[in-house]
């Protein structure tokens, strides 16, 4: 899945004098207030933070309330979906007009019928709806399926994504990745491989299926390097 990255940030937290008794608590509180909100500076949503180094000294600001600024280094896990990125999420509602998805458990996404490629046909059986591919009968999307989709736009305030299933390499993750034999090799090559992805997997964020394919590649790379060294 794209859109996730870990970045090193140099931050300054300004602490109110009343909190000077327990500065670390104040800093953690301040950092926690950043969570799950879109931040312009980081250009993404902070999902998690880890404080690395805290400066021993702080500079006091002059003013009515003498806040003091504590410098620190932190690792931030950021989620910044951009248009044309591929994201994965779980389907929570399926209708003829739209598919509703939840990404990473907190961000909502919707894919409207005009953004669902004609390959998929909506079928309703006993009140339960599903999308079935006309080409590959096994490729189905139901409530609970993990799907991969393209980002069209993001509403930063409420973290609502508008998505698309037009490209061929979108659809049910289980079918796209698991059934490698059935899917065409072209679709695998088309899938983008940004640099951050391997790092992300080490943190265990992306879904299970993607892991296996990329880990193989990673292992192969390491083996090649080792072989090259040995020789």
């Amino acid at each position, binding site marked *: 899945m794209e859109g996730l990255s870990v970045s090193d940030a140099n931050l300054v937290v300004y602490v109110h004098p009343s909190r000077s008794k327990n500065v670390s608590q104040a800093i953690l509180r301040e950092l926690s207030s950043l969570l*799950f909100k879109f931040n312009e500076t980081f250009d993404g949503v902070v999902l998690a933070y880890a404080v690395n180094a805290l400066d021993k000294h702080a500079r006091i600001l002059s003013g009515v309330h003498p806040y003091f600024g504590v410098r620190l280094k932190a690792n931030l896990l950021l989620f910044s979906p951009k248009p044309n990125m591929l994201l994965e999420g779980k389907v*929570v*509602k399926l209708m*003829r*007009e*739209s598919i*509703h998805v*939840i990404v990473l*458990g*907190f*961000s*909502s996404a*919707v894919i*409207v*019928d*005009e953004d669902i490629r004609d390959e998929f046909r909506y079928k309703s059986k006993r009140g339960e709806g599903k999308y079935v591919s006309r080409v590959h009968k096994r490729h189905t999307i139901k409530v609970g399926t993990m799907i991969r989709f393209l980002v069209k736009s993001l*509403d930063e*305030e*409420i*973290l*609502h994504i*508008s998505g698309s299933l037009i490209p061929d390499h979108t659809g049910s993750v289980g079918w796209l990745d698991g059934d490698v034999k059935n899917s065409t090799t072209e679709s695998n090559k088309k899938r983008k491989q940004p640099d951050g992805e391997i790092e992300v997997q080490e943190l265990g964020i992306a879904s299970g299926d993607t892991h296996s394919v990329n880990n193989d590649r990673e292992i192969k790379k390491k083996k090649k390097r080792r072989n090259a060294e040995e020789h």
Partner: protein
Amino acid sequence: MHHSERLAPDEVALLVTSLKALSGAVSYIDNVHHDSLLNSIFGMSLWKYGPDVMDALLELIIALAASNGKYVDSCLDMLVSNFMPPMYLVNTLKQPRGLAKKEQVLSRVHTALEGIVDLIPMAASRLSSVVVHRMPTTFKKDLQKDHLMYRTEVYVENILRLESGAIREFVGSRMLMAVVDMLIELDVAIGWDDILQDDSCKGIFAIELEDADEVAADDDNDENDYAELPRTLNRKSLGKNIVADLLDSLMVQTFEHLESCARNKRLGEVFETLLDSFMLTILNTYKSKFAQFVMFYACALDPEKCGVKFANTLVDRFVCSDNAVTRMSAVAYLASYLARAKFLSAAFVASTLKRLVDWCLEYCETQNGEMNPKAHRVFYSGCQAIMYVLCFRMRSLMDVPRLKSQLLVMPLGPVLKHKLDPLKVCLPSIVEEFLKQAKAAYLLTTSETFIFEDLLESDFSRDFGGLERLDMFFPFDPCLLKKCDRGYIRPNFVYWKHVRTTYGSDEEDSSDEDITEDFVVVNGESFMEEEGAGSLDEQHLDLDEFDYAMNKMSITPKNGFTYRFGGEQMQMPSRIRPSTTPESL
């Protein structure tokens, strides 16, 4: 789309179809071009329609919210605005068949809210903000007060429903805090003036006081008359006050909610939020008269965990906080709580007292100075708290050998007879009562005799009490709100009248025991207490003398300007305090 009269079936069908069609086309609705359509939709009130239209409308709302982030706030807003029924429906809803309609609407509203949060998890925090934002805050005393009251009650019902509903994980604590905030706001809006200084009432009090004296003088008093007087007093004084009525019913709602939380075994988590809310807001709100009883009742529902936790948190705040006023307030709450909570075990009271005494001892051991009410006010408030609790509990502690020895070992002498002279500084009425009991129990004797001349307060106590008058702060004095006191607080509350003192005779004890038995009663059987109280008065009229003086123990308002006018009125206010027990006459 807005109809005021009943819709004919074909109109209903048309409306339903159009709403369903819109649901299918939400992705094509533009917020700029279709502005008036959207306004129309968001302006619809679910209360006006039948279930079919409601379902179709709610489906549309959910679809709108899920389709575009821009509509989420408006959709939530629309749903929350449907928490309250329109004014014209209030009368119908109050009737029994109205309950079904209310449930019809509200269950759908809440299901819709849950549906939106399922699809858009981030909507949960927006929801909390919308609910808090839309809370009814103006309580005009004139405009259709009954309707206003009812609608506010329904709104709070909805808030509490969110607290225990499917999305409670996300909105629960904010909802509970919102309710507590509302209770405090209402509480603070009721001035003591509204309750006490009604001139007509004052006259009545005076008359009734005389009547009561005459009545007491007779051997056979008609217990019916006796029992009725305080109730009329009550209704006259507080009944006129719409805000008090509203607070009363909201507190009852909160109590019932707490009861259902206890039944569903979630009182623990709810209590955490309640305690945090209390320490943040109620603790420092000195004008708060009744809102704190929410804590009292929550503790009563689970004495071993919640009850104990509350007391321990207050002790910690007293011992560890930096802010003197907060500390004094915390110990005042603690003292009033330990004295009045019937459900706390004597052993626990003893161990908490020990903590207080130890702190006080440590404090005065490090002090070399003389008496100084302002400088050592935290210390004096601690001492006063100890004495106050012992006034209520000394007998019960002395009756248990193990606790008696604990009490005798406590360094009360070194603390109270220290150079800092707490006996001179603390509230005279409390010191007097305490010394009387301590002497009778051979717990503590003083060489000086303290002559207080029945003074309620002194200059010294005023000094240490400070602006907020924390020397006269007894937050858990009898609750004056009828409904919540009668049904909920009373069975768990210790009234001074029924406290056995160490100098009391054995004869009194037996009758007191009768009373306490009558008191161990469930909601709704409060009529039994009155009979019990009546019989007590019949048998032991000399107790009334004690009552007269002892009711001084039930003084509440810190800005009791009614006290200051001359010596005579010193005693009367303590009687006038309209307590809901029939005994206080």
